[in-house]
């Protein structure tokens, strides 16, 4: 019998970690698969942000560096520029990390066209700290710091990072994908692989925004949270390739 699907050898087996139905796990698995397929594990460094994204540190088999909250693109800038030429650097960040406290760092890293890869997981909430309102929380969506739902007249509208970054001249690849279904997971993997290949080819800044679910803080079962993604968050944040050159 032939094994037609195997867990990537580039990933640690982790018991526990993310909550049931959290799609961070899928993203981590995909990034590990890409590292395995491209054969880059021993020359790769992950700069992880703060929040649930730092739980991934237990999964990676490559070198890992923890950046202060939101600063991963700045750390990656210094690292990528000064590391040996063949070093592959990626940041792994959530939406609070990247689109709130780290907005300045991601904008400028993108604007400089830094040659690294950004894996950006958007689940519309602050997961680790307990479901506070994120820059990506939908209007009307409840959060622990927006107990009556996000009011646009008070705190404005969700930030669409791919669209915002698409205003800049330098980025090479900007795509929004989702892990809500297996076909979309396959597309997500292709986007991640392209974002890493771009870096290896020296093409410049690539960012993949991955729509994810947070069943725990959304207060939904894993299956209902997938439904919520399809009906709500994936409508607010349309999938697609925003930049590819």
């Amino acid at each position, binding site marked *: 019998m032939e094994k037609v699907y195997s867990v990537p050898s580039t990933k640690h087996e982790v018991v526990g970690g993310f909550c049931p139905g959290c*799609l961070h796990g899928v993203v981590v698995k995909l990034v590990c698969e890409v590292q395995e397929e491209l054969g880059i594990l021993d020359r790769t460094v992950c700069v992880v942000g703060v929040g649930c994204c730092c739980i991934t540190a237990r999964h990676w088999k490559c070198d890992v560096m923890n950046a202060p909250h939101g600063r991963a693109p700045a750390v990656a800038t210094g690292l990528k520029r000064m590391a040996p030429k063949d070093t592959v650097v990626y940041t792994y960040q959530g939406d609070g990390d990247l689109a709130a406290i780290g907005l300045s760092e991601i904008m400028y890293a993108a604007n400089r066209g830094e040659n690294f890869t950004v894996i950006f997981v958007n689940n519309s909430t602050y997961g680790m700290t307990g479901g506070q309102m994120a820059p990506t929380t939908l209007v009307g969506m409840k959060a622990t710091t927006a107990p009556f739902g996000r009011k646009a007249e008070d705190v404005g509208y969700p930030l669409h990072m791919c669209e915002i970054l698409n205003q800049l001249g330098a980025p090479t690849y900007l795509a929004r994908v989702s892990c809500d279904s297996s076909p979309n*997971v396959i597309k997500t993997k292709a986007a991640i692989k392209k974002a890493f290949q771009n870096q290896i080819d020296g093409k410049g800044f690539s960012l993949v925004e991955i729509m994810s679910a947070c069943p725990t803080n959304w207060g939904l079962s894993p299956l209902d949270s997938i439904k919520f993604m399809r009906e709500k968050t994936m409508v607010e944040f349309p999938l697609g390739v925003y930049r590819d050159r």
Partner: protein
Amino acid sequence: MPKVEINSKVCKACELCILNCPKGVLALGKESNPSGYHYVTVVNQDACIACKMCAIACPDAAIEIYK
């Protein structure tokens, strides 16, 4: 004939594999793993077509497929 192998230790019973399986091969079991989850089990192996959809969707990398 295809075979689905489940690493029950890391399964968190989120059911995403069940959602993504087109043939009804999988279901939550009655046994619980050391973490307390009623991990997924294969209930209809004969129907499996090795499309890998379950494994691809699994957030915990708990599924491997043989053909």
